[in-house]
């Protein structure tokens, strides 16, 4: 039951107390790394406007701001991935130039990136130690042992010789974290390390960060989750539109104040009035579908206009159910009925024909063509409808449709001909949503729709999901964020290790019940 209790901690994170030794270190206020008047522009787009940032030895410094505020860009400049248009970087009083990540690593900085960047065909041990092998010659036995230790720290138990391929995004992220921790870096940058983790894993990571700061490491932490930031950080810097709004001691600022500073206007928390809606006949009926060894005996029904949340731990089989219904890995047994008619979905093409859309979790890998413009991505799935005679693409129509979605979803971009890869995470997600909504599906499956996007953008996505439901679409939403499952869903299906462990009706949806079912102890909780 340990993990069960851990879950509750994760919901109500309080600040982790500061020990005396740490307080002494922090009170010295030794400036370790500082950035002065950093400007960065991509073309005409000024991403950072004269940013001053300083990092004191031993602190956990949180960076927060809406998508596109410039947090990731700042860290990427400090890590040598981007070159600043102007400005200086000082490390322990000396001006340094970070021309390439190799310089930053040489100065004792490690970075955990927002999107895992791993070597799929190489072993886990190699993934952990690449970039900081101790010697020229590699002793694999030693390395594998150390890799196992490093994995243990982040709560993973794979064989270190296993290939990276086949690990989930969360697991890959944890391996990257293990990699950064195993390097002897003094300073660790974490760019949304928790975005793809489940609450249990998040809690594990926060405990790890606490250990790290006790060891005297200095950490910069980007997250959209205020609870985490309040729990873990010493100081908080808020960015808005490429400028620093301010840096605050954690104890001096409340969550509401942080949100206000981020958005620059008054914020309404996205609670939902639980009005009693009634739905008609079930439209999507899934009965007893299984893929042996992956998930078994899953049944649910969704009516038009209904939102079904799907909760569970990472690896519970939620994404796999979605992929099964969408025909990527077709289900082996059971029935799927749409509008009362039984359908066989053996491929994504068949799913699209049946007006099902899937917005995948892994935007960059599966959802989007990042090197193509927004317009191309938005109309990709409806290409037939914008074809002229002889198959020429009607670019005017393409542009018009894309602009409608950019406007409707408030996507931040220069124009619809901008490459999707240049957008921030939240805006990429909006394009990904637009791509599928434009197909006008009856059934919309969303896999982690708000992964890695900020509070403001989340609200917009929520509004959009509700609007789509009101328009009469069946919505299945997989999410690891309890808040959004609770506030959006009309019913919640909970999975645990490939089994369906709960189907909560609207008046039963509470944090506690979802989490109990996610740990397969619903009966005990009742």
């Amino acid at each position, binding site marked *: 039951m340990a993990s069960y209790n851990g879950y509750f901690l994760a919901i109500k994170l309080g600040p982790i107390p500061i020990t005396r030794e740490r307080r002494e270190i922090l009170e010295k206020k030794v400036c370790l790394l500082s950035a002065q008047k950093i400007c960065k522009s991509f073309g005409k787009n000024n991403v950072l406007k004269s940013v001053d940032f300083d990092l004191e030895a031993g602190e956990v410094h949180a960076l927060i701001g809406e998508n596109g505020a410039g947090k990731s860009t700042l860290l990427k400049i400090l890590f040598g991935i981007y070159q600043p248009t102007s400005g200086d970087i000082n490390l322990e009083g000396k001006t340094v130039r970070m021309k390439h990540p190799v310089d930053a690593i*040489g100065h004792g900085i490690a970075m955990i990136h927002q999107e895992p960047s791993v070597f799929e*065909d190489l072993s886990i041990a190699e993934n952990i130690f690449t970039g900081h092998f101790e010697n020229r010659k590699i002793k694999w036995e030693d390395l594998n042992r150390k890799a196992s230790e490093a994995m243990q720290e982040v709560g993973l138990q794979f064989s270190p010789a296993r290939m990276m391929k086949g690990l989930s995004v969360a697991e890959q992220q944890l391996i990257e974290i293990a990699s950064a921790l195993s390097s002897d870096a003094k300073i660790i940058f974490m760019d949304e390390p928790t975005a793809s983790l489940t609450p249990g894993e998040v809690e594990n990571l926060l405990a790890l960060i606490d250990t790290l700061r006790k060891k005297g490491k200095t950490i910069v932490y980007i997250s959209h989750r205020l609870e985490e930031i309040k729990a873990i950080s010493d100081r908080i810097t808020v960015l808005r539109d490429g400028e620093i709004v301010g840096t605050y001691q954690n104890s001096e600022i409340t969550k509401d104040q942080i949100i206000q500073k981020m958005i620059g206007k008054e914020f309404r928390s996205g609670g939902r009035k639980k009005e009693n809606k009634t739905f008609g006949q079930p439209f999507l009926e899934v009965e007893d579908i299984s893929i042996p060894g992956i998930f078994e005996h899953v049944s649910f029904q969704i009516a038009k206009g209904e939102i079904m949340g799907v909760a569970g731990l990472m690896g519970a089989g939620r994404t*796999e159910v979605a992929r099964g219904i969408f025909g990527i890995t077709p289900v082996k047994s059971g029935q799927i009925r749409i509008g009362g008619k039984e359908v066989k979905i053996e491929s994504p093409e068949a799913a699209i024909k049946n007006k099902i859309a899937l917005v995948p979790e892994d935007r960059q890998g599966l959802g989007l063509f990042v090197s193509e413009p927004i317009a191309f991505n938005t109309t990709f799935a409806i290409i037939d409808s914008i074809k002229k005679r002889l198959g020429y693409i009607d670019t005017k129509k393409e542009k018009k449709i894309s602009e409608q979605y950019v406007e409707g979803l408030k996507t931040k971009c220069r124009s619809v001909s901008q490459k999707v890869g240049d957008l921030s995470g939240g805006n990429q997600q909006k394009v990904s949503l637009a791509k599928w909504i434009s197909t006008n599906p009856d059934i919309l499956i969303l896999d982690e729709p708000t992964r890695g996007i900020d509070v403001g953008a989340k609200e917009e996505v929520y509004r959009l999901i509700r609007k789509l439901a009101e328009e009469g679409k069946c919505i299945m939403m997989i999410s690891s964020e309890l808040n959004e499952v609770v506030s959006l869903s009309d019913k919640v299906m909970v999975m645990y290790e490939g089994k369906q462990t709960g189907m909560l009706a609207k008046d039963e949806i509470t944090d506690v019940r979802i989490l109990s079912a996610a740990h397969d102890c619903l009966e005990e909780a009742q």
Partner: protein
Amino acid sequence: MKSRKLNLSSFRELGVIAMIVIIYIVVCIIEPRFFSTTSLVNILLFFPFLLIVSLGEMIEIVSRNVDMSLGAILACSGYAAGLLFKTNSDIPIAAAFIVAIALGCVLGLINGFIVTRFQIPSVIVTLGTMNIYRGVIFILGGKQIDNSVIPQSLMALSQPKESIIGIPYSVLIALLAAVLLAVFLKYFRAGREIYEIGCNPAAASLRGISNNRVQMFVFTLAGGLSGLAGMVFISRIGYMDPGAAGRGLEFTAIAAVVIGGTSMNGGVGKVTGTVLGCLLLGVIQNAISITGISGYWQEAIYGIIIVVSVIIDNLIKNRLAVSEAR
């Protein structure tokens, strides 16, 4: 689960071994003459310079490059060594080896410099340098180096009689190169970096590995290996015709590498696979000549084997993907 994955990933090598054995047995049945030490030695003699060039081609492919100039580098280096013998017949063989390998390294380095400095795909660059290097030979004279100039001690390297255990020294040199490369690729940081940049160049860069530096190194090493292959080539053939030497060898090498399971997408490839790939091509080449099938078929058969092995590779990959999704 674990054993199954192991089976599937080593399936490739087992498959190549099975093919070698099957072809060997079939040809022995058709033509009993094939079942002899002579033909075994012939197979082995086919393979030293091909193997050495293939090893270079393998690391190139692992690092997401393809080198079309390795045959030309072989010819250049061999020719340079030949000229050396021509001007001074007393020159020690070791010195000729050093000259050939060094020249190979320089020519490879030039490839690497152009590829990394101007960010041009290596296929295009090496297609160009292939012709340039051949051209350079003709500027240097370009006449055939005759048998009479080549020292007997060098030719002896490819004579089974001169060897300790009946295996010619040239074969042993090639196998030694393979073993050294395998150890380097597995146990040295610089060797692992080749796989890392091949597997995910962006991630490697984020981990502080300079893609350009590693690529330069790979081109240089592949060039050096081709230089060594040039020496082995002379010792086997006994003369050096710089126009014909090593012509098209890079294609055979690519075939051997691909058959051996190296992925054209980079990041995956084993020395053992490449050795087996070369052996398979050696068996086929000898089988063709001994069974009296027209030599024109050779290329077509190589082609078929490449396509089939890539198809098998993909099937394995898909099955692996399914089994790992579970």
